[in-house]
């Protein structure tokens, strides 16, 4: 077993895990942060997206041990003090989720996208979120929600 100290959504966390255990399994099974989902386990669907030092990664392809000394951001950390992030508000307002299982990954990826590029074109949003699979919506309402959130965030 490995002992790991990291920061998750800003809070210091120490956990032990097996050397071959993924960050996704650590988050879900050891820390009870089940917001990130396993849709494939091979880095193809993006349902397990989290940020590692601000960069979006598939947590199923990262080892728990690799989180040592890093900053991990999960969907549970997007709303602050009970207040939803504009992306979360727009996802609800635009009905950008049907089943909702891909939503945590989309929110994590979209938040990172807007932090990089506050005014993305439709194509930039589509390519920026191409690592996240959604099987319910056909992406139309997701793209519109991200556009609306970006506009709201630019206004401040």
């Amino acid at each position, binding site marked *: 077993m490995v002992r790991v100290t990291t920061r998750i959504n800003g809070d210091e966390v120490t956990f032990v895990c*097996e050397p*071959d255990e993924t960050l996704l*399994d650590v988050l*879900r*099974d050891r820390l009870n*942060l*089940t*917001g*990130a*989902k*396993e*849709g*494939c*386990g*091979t880095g*193809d*669907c993006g*349902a397990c997206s989290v940020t590692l030092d601000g960069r979006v990664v598939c947590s199923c392809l990262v080892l728990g041990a690799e989180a040592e000394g890093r900053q991990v951001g*999960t*969907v*549970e950390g*997007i*709303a602050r003090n009970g207040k*939803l992030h504009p992306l*979360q508000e727009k*996802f*609800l*307002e*635009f*009905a950008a*989720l*049907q*089943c*909702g*299982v*891909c*939503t*945590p990954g989309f*929110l994590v990826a979209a938040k990172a996208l807007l932090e990089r590029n506050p005014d993305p074109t*439709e*194509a930039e*949003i*589509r*390519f920026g*979120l*191409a*690592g*996240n*699979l*959604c*099987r*319910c*919506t*056909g*992406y*139309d*309402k*997701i*793209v*519109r929600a991200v556009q609306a959130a970006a506009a709201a965030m630019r206004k401040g």
Partner: protein
Amino acid sequence: MPLDAKFDPATHHFRLVGTRPLRPDGYDKVVGRARFGADASAPGMLVGRILRSPHPHARIRAIDTARAAKLPGVKAIVTRDDFKDGDPSLKDVLVNVMARDKALYDGHAVAAVAATSASVARKALKLIRVDYEILPHVTDVDEAMKPGAPILHGDMRTENIEPAPKKASNVASRCEFGHGDPEQGFKQADVVIERRFKTEATHQGYIEPHACLASVGSDGQGELWVCTQGHYMVRNTCAALVGMDVSKLRVTASEIGGGFGGKTTVFIEPVALALSRKAGKPVKLVMSREEVFRASGPTSSASMTVKIGVTRHGRITGAHADIRFQGGAFAGSPIELGAMSAFACYDLEHVKAVGWDVVTNRPKQAAYRAPGAPMVAFAVESVLDELAHKIGMDPVELRLKNTAKEGTRSSYGPKYNRIGLAACLEAARRHPHYEAPLGPNQGRGIAAGFWFNFGGQTCVSLNVNIDGTVALAVGTPDIGGSRASMCMMAAEELGIEYDKVRAIVADTSSLGYNDISEGSRVTFSTGLATIAAARDAIGKLCARAAKIWGIAPEAVVWENGRARPAGPNAGDFAPLSLAEIAKTAAKTGGPIAGHHEVNADGAGVSFAVHLCDAEVDPETGRVTIKRYTVVQDAGKAIHPSYVEGQFQGGAAQGIGWALNEEYVYGRDGRLQNPGFLDYRIPVASDLPMIDTVIVEVPNPGHPYGVRGVGETSIVPPLAAIDKAKAGKKRR
């Protein structure tokens, strides 16, 4: 409870229906709090894993679990010996859940373990020795029908053919639908075209793999947490397969991460229950994505021959289809639905569709959004398009000349009630997309589609709380926002605000039986039952008001969320709100609740017309969808955003099916692409915005005119996209 003849949903002023409030489960889903199938855990929980056959067809001589059982941390192992034959109608389900004498496809379950950790469980699987005698296999539908093909089931005799065959084959049954004599019809035609088509199997591709948490005690009582479209079905099926009383198994439906028909049966649930019973501890069992592809239910692959004749004036004189579906290793492909739906869009004098249900060494198919219809519509709509081209007629015009309408005898038998195909065709023709100029290397396709829609057994309970809020318990898992629609319909009837109603999906011990969330039935039938339960509660609220006022219950009416005396003769009392009546319920007779139980019919068929522009890169052949429009009859859209979502989602799945999704089997009979990298579903950068037009031709079978909308949207895309990419510009 049909539509009241005096009530016109098109002109009625609804307070909530047709608006777009936030869904009640939305907050939990955007903050990561919603609990899906794999998100539950229990004290002392074990991890389950399933060993699967690497062979497409093999006799299982012996299974040796002795070494695995000795591995520290292994708490239970189950094999075929742990599942006894029972209900004959569930035999195929049982054999699919755990192989018996033969492994019938690559991925067929042969054993399962429960252990203290995932790594112990994985090691244990490697220690199980299965002695296989490898048999010849067949995975293609046409090959499986040939004489001399490897036979899957020695006792399979084709049903519904005369004389009854004496020899075993892979053809489970034949079916036939239609009327008139197509041969006669073809003689009256100016042009007759016959074409043959094949489509590959696709997978529903829900992002959430199958997952459950089972807990069975030595007292024989059990609980199951599971992602499913039908937890009552899971309860009844599992109770029968593992030998439990239905009343002793309580099943809770988790939030469900997509289903599209794929979660309408059981795969891992009976295995988890058997492991838990044997170990005496809770067992969590979650499929990997590879298992989902190899061993859950994709749709059928199809081989089809379609022949249609038309006059030069565009009247279809005869139509015939011969359709062959393989549905995996067991009988039960959606061949009947395919054959019934083939020509359902059209008003035909001479029409026949013959279907063949074929078994192959592939996983047992499961329903996939309008099961059986998309591939058959692909064949039929393609031939129609070619005919339109040949006689020089606009493809929408050709369809309008032959469109099914109220009173048409459908190709599968019943006469249509009020339907909306003509309205959809007209709306498509009026849409700016239809006349928009096309760019270089672009083509436009148009196709129509049909789905039956279903009603079914439904039970709803509506409890009025002390503060005037309402708790609504439904039994149909919410796969796409249905709780929002139910809250809207309940609030509409009761005359209270939307956010005063809270809908939950009740567990199997808390509410009466409900059929599966399938067949586009939920907004129709659970909606109908919700409206009826609200009206039941209103009757009781009025009776309480009458009691308070000391007048007859018949002298009280419900209006705008209040009880008031029916007229001056009834007495002069200030109206009482739902909250005011609820507050004093203890003094007027106790809790106030409305209920409704129904086996709903009158679901009302649904039609759609899709327009697609595709661009083909002349150098690489890459196809890009440039523009897409869905026009579909919703009867009455309760929450338009989620109606649009169904239209868009079905279209996107159809685009995937048309362009880049398929099951690829190697010569070795093994699935070659069991992952999202090689089985590529559309991503955001593959698609354009998907425009939607909601047509509302009220369904006479629902109090607000609702028709199911979930399935029709996957029916037209295959043909629409194929025509668009063939570059056949609209004439």
